[in-house]
């Protein structure tokens, strides 16, 4: 591809339209990538059992601004997450990832569109839908009035899980996440990374069919990140579907069967990381000057696609 992207660097709008054009072109050239997209008209016909764990259809979200007027944070977002699938939501800060997640939890009402969890609309039947949903918010929502183990057990009881099962699961998760020796400690005594681990563990205590994890590995050390990846793999083998939002492209490339790249509230492209790389990056090898005089040669990766589509100035030139 010519170095066209670079000539538009200062103007966001022309670049955006240029990207849209390229994305459209790439979609047409990759019809196979479109087969997993679902026609919204099909939904009514699908039964509970046949419907995927998570289905988001034509989701739009507008916020009222305090000064008056509205701001559309998410526009026409559609995707499914199948059982055992890990679906990545990638995008720069403010692209609408957390808004989509708040709508999936049923906390924010969508301005248009639907969220179905296991075939149940989260707005009309939030209790039923959220019974099979586990959420790890981006911000810290741990209940600081309870100690580490109690935290998990208490959260389980919100799902009407009996105390014995809750205790068993809590001990297993604490062990798995390396928090067993902290079980009786207050939350304040935990470091940021440990709190993050605990919050992810809390999202899994109800053994959800769908886990929504908003930047779960932010602040985790490499070791803890590996542990989380392993835990998620295990849970997926048991059928759990995962919606993952992350800023770590290596993580997305490694974990996600498919990713959606989100920019200014719209999905620019959805596909497997490999297909995205193939479709968007023409070069077989990338040369990058990482330090003055030091040039690395490497294969193109998801980060290159991300930077190219979301239009960061820091992207590698001439992709």
């Amino acid at each position, binding site marked *: 591809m010519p170095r066209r992207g670079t000539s538009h660097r200062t103007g966001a709008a022309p670049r955006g339209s240029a990207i849209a054009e390229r994305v459209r072109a790439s979609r047409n050239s990759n019809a196979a990538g479109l087969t997993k997209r679902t026609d919204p008209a099909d939904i009514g016909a699908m039964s509970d059992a046949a419907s995927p764990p998570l289905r988001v259809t034509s989701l739009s979200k507008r916020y009222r601004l305090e000064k008056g007027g509205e701001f559309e944070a998410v526009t026409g977002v559609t995707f499914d997450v199948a059982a055992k699938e890990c679906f990545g939501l990638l995008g720069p800060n403010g692209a609408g990832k957390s808004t989509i997640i708040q709508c999936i939890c049923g906390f*924010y009402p969508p301005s248009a569109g639907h969220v179905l969890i296991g075939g149940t609309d989260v707005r009309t039947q939030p209790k039923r839908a959220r019974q099979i*949903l586990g*959420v790890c*918010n981006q911000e810290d929502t741990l209940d600081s009035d*309870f100690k580490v183990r109690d935290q998990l057990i*208490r959260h389980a009881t*919100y*799902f*009407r899980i009996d105390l014995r099962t809750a205790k068993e699961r809590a001990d297993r998760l604490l062990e798995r996440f390396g928090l067993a020796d902290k079980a009786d400690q207050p939350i304040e005594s935990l470091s940021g990374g440990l709190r993050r681990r605990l919050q992810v563990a809390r999202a899994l205590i109800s053994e959800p069919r769908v886990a929504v994890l908003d930047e779960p590995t932010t602040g985790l050390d490499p070791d803890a990140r590996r542990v989380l990846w392993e835990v998620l793999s295990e849970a997926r083998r048991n059928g759990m579907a995962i919606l993952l939002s992350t800023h770590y492209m290596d993580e997305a490339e490694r974990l996600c069967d498919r990713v959606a790249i989100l920019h200014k509230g719209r999905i620019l492209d959805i596909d497997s990381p490999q297909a995205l790389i193939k479709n968007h990056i023409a070069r077989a090898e990338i040369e990058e000057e990482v330090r003055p005089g030091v040039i690395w040669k490497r294969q193109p990766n998801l980060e290159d696609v991300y930077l190219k589509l979301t239009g960061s100035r820091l992207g590698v030139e001439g992709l």
Partner: protein
Amino acid sequence: MRLPDWAWGVSRVWLRYYDVFTKSIVFYAVTTFVQPVLYLLAFGVGVGSLVGTLTVSGMPVTYRAFIFSGVISQTVLFSGFFEGAFGGFVRMYYQRIFQAIAITPITLSEVLWGELLWDTTKATVAAEAVALIGVMTGDFAPLSLLTVLPVCFLSSLLFSGMGLASAAFARDIDQISYPQYLLVFPMFLFCGVFYPIEKMPYALQLIAWTLPLTSVNSLVRTLTLGLPFQFWAVPILFAWLTLLVALSRRAMFRRLVK
């Protein structure tokens, strides 16, 4: 027996507060009960010895009994408002408990009812403890513990709603000072806790009656001291109750749900 889902959700949230309460019961006992006891001592015994007996609505009442019944309402006001306002703000803003629970099968509506009912429970128990002191000192009839309970409960819910609404409107925790100084303290001083409002000029009495604490005081005194029943206190109480509970829920939803 399996509770309906909504009742189970509300009770689950209420139990969370109860579990926190029992873990630091000494702290709560001190912060909840010391203040009314200090008022009882300072005004009941101290000022009471100077004033002796009052005539309220044509009936003789000892100042000590008068102040004891006033402190019941004052306890409801302070306990309900401060728990709802500061406690509610901390739980909503700093601890994000509402947000954490309302993404489970428990809904935000149930979380807010649980919060309101817990604040109400705490204020009701504190007010009943004051009433119990009044019974032990012989100022109230024992039965009044029971008869005053519904008024304590409803007015606790009213002031918890006022507190939670304040928390919902406050941008930061300091802004709770506005309702505290503009509503709570004026009610505390001018709605008949320390002296019968009929001693005030007529215009001030009318203003006092628009505020909910005057009605609470009136009903509490009817039930504890046998003063004449001022029927208009009932609609005023229910009007404020409905308004503040609805406002607190609406404002919280508006704040949290974008």
